[in-house]
């Protein structure tokens, strides 16, 4: 497949690793923000091919993992109501709420459906005028254009049985939170390539300047990730802190203007609670009040939620890069992908699931 095979070429992979090894003179700690990159690093064993003086720390870029427990509990409560068809991206169905998950709600006889796209949920709403269709609109900036478009499309089609349960998160405020923490160890960032496809990378320039930290926009194939690491290492060794683009076939500085316009039309910035981490100011998007007719939190009377988190799950520390999954006492014994205690073991992008799946059980 064009634009995939070239970026999995083993000669290139080893050539870039050799150049990284030639360039590096001291120990450096680099965070890959995006869980998709974490999985690629584990899948291809890149962490084991790199010099030992590079420590890769896995960031909070897994929307399934950071969607707050309150929001999961609200989803469970709405999905349990009669005449509701609850639709969601597949990963969310196994995320544990305070009591059960969306799969258990479906097993109780409720209508919970996995969709590939928010537009699939629109089609379900058109086909089921006597039902209320709720779409669980989670995600980072990458997913926001799709979720926002579904609201405008519902409006255009005059649908009055479609709403979104919105839990959107944004990367730059999370980077501020990580870099501003007294526990921070991160010296360089791989920025998430598909977030930047939508938003561009102009937002990262003031972050690089403020914290004097190199940030490199990075893709998802092995060659892409190693290029990002090489660029970060070169900056660190030369004492530079600029924003560079190692994913230029997809990402440009301004991002996708059409997508940003639709996001701005539908969503507004809000404080957001991240599961395991807590509130990060300005780190979320919510529906503007003019779209209240499409806001599931307004449309459904969800009782006051008092979430109860597993006492054993320490995913917050993992999401902040403070510890590794293998350091958790529950990892691979009480907590497995079949019986996850926390969202980082559920998601296809969660760091715990990546370590479990690709055999980093030490």
């Amino acid at each position: 497949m064009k634009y995939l095979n070239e970026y999995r070429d083993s000669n290139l992979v080893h050539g870039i690793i050799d150049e990284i090894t030639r360039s590096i003179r001291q120990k450096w700690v680099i965070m890959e923000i995006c869980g998709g990159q974490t999985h690629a690093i584990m899948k291809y064993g890149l962490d084991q091919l790199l010099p030992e003086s590079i420590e890769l720390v896995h960031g909070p870029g897994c929307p399934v993992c950071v969607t707050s427990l309150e929001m999961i509990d609200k989803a469970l409560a709405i999905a349990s109501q009669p005449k509701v068809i609850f639709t969601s991206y597949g990963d969310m169905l196994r995320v544990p709420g305070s009591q059960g998950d969306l799969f258990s709600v479906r097993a109780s006889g409720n209508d919970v459906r996995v969709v590939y796209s928010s537009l699939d949920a629109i089609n379900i709403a058109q086909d089921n005028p006597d039902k209320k269709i709720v779409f669980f609109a989670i995600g980072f900036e990458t997913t926001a254009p799709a979720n926002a478009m579904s609201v405008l499309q519902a409006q255009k089609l005059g649908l009055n049985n479609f709403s979104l349960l919105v839990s959107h998160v944004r990367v730059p405020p999370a980077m501020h939170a990580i870099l501003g923490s007294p526990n921070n160890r991160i010296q360089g960032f791989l920025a998430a390539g598909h977030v930047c496809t939508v938003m561009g990378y102009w937002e990262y320039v003031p972050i690089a300047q403020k914290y004097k930290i190199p940030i490199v926009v990075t893709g998802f194939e092995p060659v892409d990730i190693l290029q990002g690491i090489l660029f970060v290492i070169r900056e660190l060794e030369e004492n530079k802190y600029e924003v560079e683009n190692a994913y230029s076939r997809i990402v440009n500085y301004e991002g996708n203007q059409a997508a940003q316009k639709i996001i701005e039309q539908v969503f507004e910035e809000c404080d957001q609670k991240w599961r395991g981490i807590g509130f990060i100011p300005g780190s979320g998007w919510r529906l503007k009040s003019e779209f209240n007719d499409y806001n599931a939190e307004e449309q459904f009377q969800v009782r006051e939620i008092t979430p109860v988190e597993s006492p054993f799950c320490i995913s917050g520390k993992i999401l902040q890069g403070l510890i590794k999954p293998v350091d958790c006492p529950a990892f691979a014994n009480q907590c497995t992908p079949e019986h996850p205690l926390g969202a980082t073991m559920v998601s296809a992008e969660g760091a715990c699931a990546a370590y479990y799946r690709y055999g980093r059980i030490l």
Partner: protein
Amino acid sequence: MCLAVPGKIIEIYETNCLLMGKVDFGGVVRETCLAYVPEAKVGDYTIIHVGFALNLIDEKEAMETLALLEAISKQDPTE
């Protein structure tokens, strides 16, 4: 969640006033919303996330990056 896959646009049309298309992912063809890449033409490569094309793939940039990386990887380590 933020996974996105490259594919080739093989058909462009409108459904419910929304720009849509068929995209070929190495043999698997899926319907995709092209509203965010209105400049797209049949034959262009694009990157798809949850049923939406997020951008077109820039072939010139792709070739330049590969040329740069090939030059890096063929460096003589003794130089």
